[in-house]
């Protein structure tokens, strides 16, 4: 993975020192809260319901074992012994004191980590596929490009006060595991006519109040032109994006208002001016960064008979192998998903002890590397198949081996009203109760791939619009009211879920979801995925099951 040189390290240390001074000036009163707020947001520090929350960046979801240990130390020393992994591959600490943040940032800097631009109206963490570098279907590893984008976007002086937040995702494979269709800029790797590396460029995706799928603005962009093209898009956004209305200031609104053709014209016109500038990437710098993502030294001969044998012997291991393993491009290896969704527990949370233990397992089994996924899980990407059984037993003893990747209990939930100052309803208790109820049903009926995402407010940080079953928690007449959407997908067949009808109270939502599942099981073709059944059947059978004789308008 990318290792800082002196220059990278200097920037992060300088930024930590700068923030230390800003905190001191705030505490002394030299800076008012109004002046300080944009500064602390640019450093990932929110004031939430109970305390400050610090969002630490995990660039494109990749970290080393020693970085995970640094997070464990911070959880223990400065928080309440746990952290929460997010849908944008970052980590959050919920109980932070402002006074401690300068020391936290210094510790993070020591581990080549930071909280730069994890919040605020600036370019956020550029995310990618959790199986980058090991997926067999990859055109090329997207991570070097994500690192190139990270550097270019860090403390970019022109784009530090954008109309709104800005999120970029890069996918290296035709199977989109990076949700590029719902990002402000989505980059999908392509090969050019001469076999050169390049990207198809998408703009204007995003969820929240007005969910939209991105539109393609360029079929092929050569890799050397990546930064100049991004700069052109950001400049058009910075200048033309709306500043008068918080709910209409994302780039998706601008693209929709101008129309994609007019938007493209503006970008291409701007790009023509800067295409041949210092932003043009040279082969040497691309190579230098690519070299840092070279595969680890894989072993030559791996006995896969062992793995088959263990699956035969141990039913629980077989069950986990069937769900939580991803085929590796290197024969004899597998990419392991470490589930942070034990049934009935808080999705995405991990204790400091678990972090330390997993760091040791990463060192022992996976060349010291851990990835964070969009589903609030973790990945050990380089595991020998003949060691999977031992790894599984270790994970199981830590409560990290729930065999549920992409299944109904692999629920994505934002912190919701239990933690977040923006929330309108709680999401975690719904996730916990649903998980328990649906685990039973899954056990009996083998529901297969079925994603459920629960957002505690319209900002949709849990990406409920792109879940097979999405739940949005609102407040109606002083009580929590949960709206259900069906049929979303964040993969290359991206679609936005449709609202199925009136919302359900906190005491109704679990049985409502159960009703949906039962209605599906009655009509499911053999082994069919929920999403496919839904696309085949439409919403009517589900509406009828939920609302019966009531007719609701959409």
């Amino acid at each position, binding site marked *: 993975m990318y290792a800082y*040189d002196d*220059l*990278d390290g*200097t*920037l992060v240390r*300088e*930024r930590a*020192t*700068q923030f230390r*001074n*800003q905190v001191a*000036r705030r505490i002394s009163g*030299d800076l008012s809260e*109004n*002046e300080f707020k*944009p*500064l602390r947001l640019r450093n990932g520090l929110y004031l939430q319901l109970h305390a400050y929350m610090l969002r630490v960046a995990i660039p494109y979801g990749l970290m080393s074992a020693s970085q995970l240990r640094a997070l464990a130390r911070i959880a223990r020393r400065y928080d309440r012994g746990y952290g929460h992994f997010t849908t944008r591959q970052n980590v959050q600490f919920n109980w932070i004191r402002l006074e401690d943040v300068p020391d936290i940032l210094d510790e993070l800097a020591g581990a080549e980590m930071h909280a730069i631009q994890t919040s605020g*109206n600036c370019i956020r963490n550029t995310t990618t596929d959790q199986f980058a570098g090991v997926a067999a279907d990859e055109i090329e590893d997207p991570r070097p490009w994500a690192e190139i984008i990270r*550097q*270019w976007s*860090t*403390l*970019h*002086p*022109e*784009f*530090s*006060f*954008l109309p709104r937040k800005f999120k970029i995702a890069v996918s290296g494979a035709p199977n989109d595991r990076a949700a590029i269709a719902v990002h402000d800029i989505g980059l999908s790797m392509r090969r050019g006519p001469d076999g050169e590396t390049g990207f198809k460029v998408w703009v204007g995706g995003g969820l929240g109040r007005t969910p939209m799928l991105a539109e393609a603005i360029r079929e092929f962009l050569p890799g050397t032109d990546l*930064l100049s093209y991004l700069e052109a898009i950001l*400049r058009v956004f*910075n*200048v033309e994006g709306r*500043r008068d209305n918080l709910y209409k200031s994302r780039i998706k609104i601008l693209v929709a208002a101008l129309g994609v053709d007019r938007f493209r014209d503006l970008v291409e016109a701007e790009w023509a*001016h800067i295409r041949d*500038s*210092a*932003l043009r990437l040279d082969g*040497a*710098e691309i190579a*230098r960064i690519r070299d840092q993502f070279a595969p680890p030294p894989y072993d030559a001969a791996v006995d896969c008979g062992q793995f088959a044998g263990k699956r035969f012997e141990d039913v629980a291991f077989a069950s986990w192998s069937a769900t939580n393993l991803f085929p590796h491009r290197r024969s004899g290896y597998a990419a392991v998903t470490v589930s942070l969704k034990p049934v009935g527990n808080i999705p995405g949370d991990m204790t400091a002890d678990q972090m330390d233990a997993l760091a040791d397992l990463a060192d022992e089994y996976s060349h010291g590397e851990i990835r964070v996924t969009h589903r609030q899980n973790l990945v050990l990407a380089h595991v020998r198949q003949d060691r999977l059984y031992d790894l599984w037993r270790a994970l199981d003893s830590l409560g990290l081996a729930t065999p549920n990747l992409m299944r109904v209990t692999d629920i994505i939930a934002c912190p919701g009203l239990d933690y977040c100052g923006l929330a309108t309803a709680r999401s975690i208790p719904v996730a916990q109760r649903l998980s328990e109820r649906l685990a039973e049903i899954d056990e009996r009926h083998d529901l297969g791939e079925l994603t459920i995402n629960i957002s505690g407010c319209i900002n949709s940080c849990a990406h409920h619009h792109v879940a097979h079953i999405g739940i949005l928690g609102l407040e109606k007449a002083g009580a929590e009211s949960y709206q259900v959407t069906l049929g979303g997908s964040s993969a290359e067949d991206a679609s936005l879920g449709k609202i199925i009808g009136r919302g359900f109270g906190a005491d109704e939502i679990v049985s409502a979801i159960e009703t949906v599942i039962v209605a599906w099981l009655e009509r499911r073709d053999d082994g069919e995925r929920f999403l496919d059944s839904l696309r085949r059947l439409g919403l009517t059978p589900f509406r009828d099951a939920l609302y019966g004789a009531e007719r609701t308008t959409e």
Partner: protein
Amino acid sequence: MMLIDYSNTNPTVADDPWTHVADGAALPTDRPATISLQRWKAERDGLTGRNLPLGLRLESHERVDEILPDLPRFALIALEFPNLNDGRHFSTARMLRERYSFRGRVRAVGQVLRDQINLMKRCGFDQFELSAGRDAASAVSAFEEISAVYQPAADARPTIGYQRHRQFERAMAT
């Protein structure tokens, strides 16, 4: 108001000879003055005889594109920040410097936070109006806080990429 001037080698707190004149008010005869874009467009020809330096003040939604051929007439362009979130003129300043080769003063006015001036400098601003009562030494030290920069901008600061390239060349030469 405290004016920071960084149009020379070092930033200093400076006296301000400039004044902004409202539309309709007479221009002073003893000092340089800025006028609004609207006024420039309306009175353009009438202002050519003026001996004293003239400046332009742009609101956050206004663009220089409309008056490109006139840029050499202005000794100073003031770009207004109506609040701490509106970053449009970071782009305007860069265009003035990098695309239109504007050589006069580019001044940040309005809601300008000491913690933004380093970023503004990188975009081509060379004067900054901070609210009065601020600590001058602290303001000036804002420019030194981040020396390592990744991306090229309107300033001449060598980027991290450039420094790496030089290190590589030096290593190759030995």
